[in-house]
């Protein structure tokens, strides 16, 4: 496809596929009439157990993901619930660190765009410019920093923009329309709609806030709008995709990995989400 991007922030129009691989992949899925599926995995989890953790990444990607979000574990993950906290602690105990995770990503070919999710202190410690350059070098398309709200995003986003890394911004149900408007303008790749007021983790039912925030964002932007946090089952994914362009699935998948340590079991779960949202 040969879309060009013309945006209200006055950025020059660029061929989309070269400038923004994540946004391109998600727009392509949407253009085909499909919904986007972005699974989340904790980087470095079970390194050296039954093969490398990037084997799980490969299987998950091949099971129908449009992109994969990879967490670089942090000691104090305030946006994460118990499952991803546990995965982070295990990965850290196994010696996971940012250069190690990025090196592993550089040497694997997942076949879909990758987004790194981590907390700002790891990036700050690395140095914003250096971290952005390392993402680029490792073939990572995008970054998601859940403890960097709009007001603090300037220094990181400048570095990411300069390096050609897409920064996905989060948008929460508590934001005003005016604030959501500024968030979608600053977001690259997609807009991450936080489905509920709370931290990551599985919930019994889809929160009523999930479709509401997706709808509010869809009215403000043509960027893909994906809902994450609290999307626990294929049924919930289908339900939220009545409004949203897709979903991010984290804790449900990470719990499967923690429980089974099996790349096949992980792929099977992702495939079940894929099949469900394809059926609609």
């Amino acid at each position: 496809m040969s879309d060009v991007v013309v945006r209200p922030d006055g950025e020059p129009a660029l061929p989309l596929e070269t400038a923004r691989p994540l946004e391109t992949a998600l727009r392509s899925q949407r253009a085909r009439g499909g919904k986007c599926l972005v699974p989340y995995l904790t980087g470095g989890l079970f390194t050296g157990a039954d093969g490398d953790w990037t084997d799980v990444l490969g299987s998950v990607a091949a099971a129908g993901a449009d992109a994969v979000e990879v967490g670089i574990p942090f000691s104090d993950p305030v946006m994460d619930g118990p499952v991803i906290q546990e995965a982070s602690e295990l990965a850290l105990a196994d010696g996971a660190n940012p250069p190690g995770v990025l090196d592993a990503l550089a040497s694997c070919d997942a076949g879909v765009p990758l987004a790194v999710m981590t907390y700002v202190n790891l990036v700050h410690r690395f140095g914003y410019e250096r971290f952005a350059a390392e993402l680029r070098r490792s073939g990572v398309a995008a970054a998601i920093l859940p403890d960097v709200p709009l007001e603090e995003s300037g220094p990181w986003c400048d570095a990411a923009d300069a390096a050609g890394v897409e920064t996905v911004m989060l948008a929460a149900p508590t934001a005003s329309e005016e604030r959501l408007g500024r968030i979608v303008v600053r977001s690259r790749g997609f807009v991450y709609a936080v489905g509920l007021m709370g931290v990551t983790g599985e919930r019994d039912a889809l929160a009523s806030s999930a479709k509401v925030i997706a709808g509010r964002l869809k009215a403000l932007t043509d960027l893909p709008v994906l809902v994450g946090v609290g999307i626990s089952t294929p049924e919930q994914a289908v339900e939220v995709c009545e409004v949203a362009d897709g979903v991010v699935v984290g804790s449900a998948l990470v719990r499967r990995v923690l429980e089974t340590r099996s790349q096949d079991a992980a792929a099977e779960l992702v495939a079940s989400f894929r099949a469900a949202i394809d059926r609609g």
Partner: protein
Amino acid sequence: MPPVTEAVPAFGDGLMGEPDRTGRFGPYGGRFVPESLMPALQELEAAFRDAWADASFHAELDELLHSYAGRPSPLTECHRLSEHLGCRVLLKREDLNHTGSHKINNVLGQALLARRMGKTRLLAETGAGQHGVATATAAALFGMDCLVYMGEVDMARQELNVFRMRLLGAEVAPASSGSRTLKDAVNEAMRDWVATVETSHYCLGSVMGPHPYPWMVRELHRVIGDEARAQCDQLLGGPPDVVVACVGGGSNAAGIFSGFADVPGVELVGVEPVGGAAIGGGTPGIVHGMHSYLKQDEFGQVVEAQSISAGLDYPGVGPEHSHLADMGRARYEPVADEEVVEAFVLLSRTEGIIPALESAHALAWVMRARAELAGRSVLVNLSGRGDKDVAQMMDVLADRL
């Protein structure tokens, strides 16, 4: 590289005044929180500005501080300790406040503010339990629900305070991840707040976290410094030579420093536990919503603090302290657990005052620096009383007593 955003001039009254519009003291501070919390922080800042400019809010708070918390707290001259150390030691007696520490100053202010904002539930983190007890107390006083997160390790070593909080009607929830101490209790409180922000006020217990907390909590403790300044004028005919306070997050230090920061020549000394010395042993980083000095490893993972005192067992420090340190306006000295134990015993034996282990850090530095302090006047913020630490110290001192 500090993530300084726009260069906004401070619009306050200079040293220990207001932070800039991004919530920074120099390069430190800011609001590094999940997007879900930003509207709540903006609402809180607006509510605090409004209340702090409202004479009726001050009147109500002052009345509570006086008739409920027991302020003003006295200034005690330590004759026997002074003779022993060779310097003139004065104690600002925050240990005599209701609930046994300075923490009540902040909590009464935030509880009033929460009520004004229509919030019905107070959330708090606690280390030694002093802030948790103070918050539970205010919740009982105002008829609010209260949930206090406390590290599992701290719940074990501060059993008495856990019971006090429950007696006061609060729920105490264990923080069982990470180091299971104060840092993890802050994480749990922030996670809870993300989910309950519409009804809950996060009653943060120190001059840390995202803006406006470092500024608001310091303003609510400014009463310590203001009172001490007037009391020193009366007793000494002017300010003391040195002002000393322990620093974990740094709230009691910020409170007493704020009364003297603008007096040239008054030395300000913050005392950190050697195992939790963010300024003495850390580098600038970002955690718990703020950019400040932090104990972290080469990759930016937060390093677990180690201290005999649960209240100072924290790897970070309030951003204004980082700024005061960089400017050279205050200096920060580490003391070891063994020195703290000696100070704990010394004050008990010379003055009949059992200090909190936290406050004993400040005294431990005075003991160590006695040569440098000879003949000078030293104001120590005795931030809390030691009753809560007696069970723990029975083991430590078993062979000596």
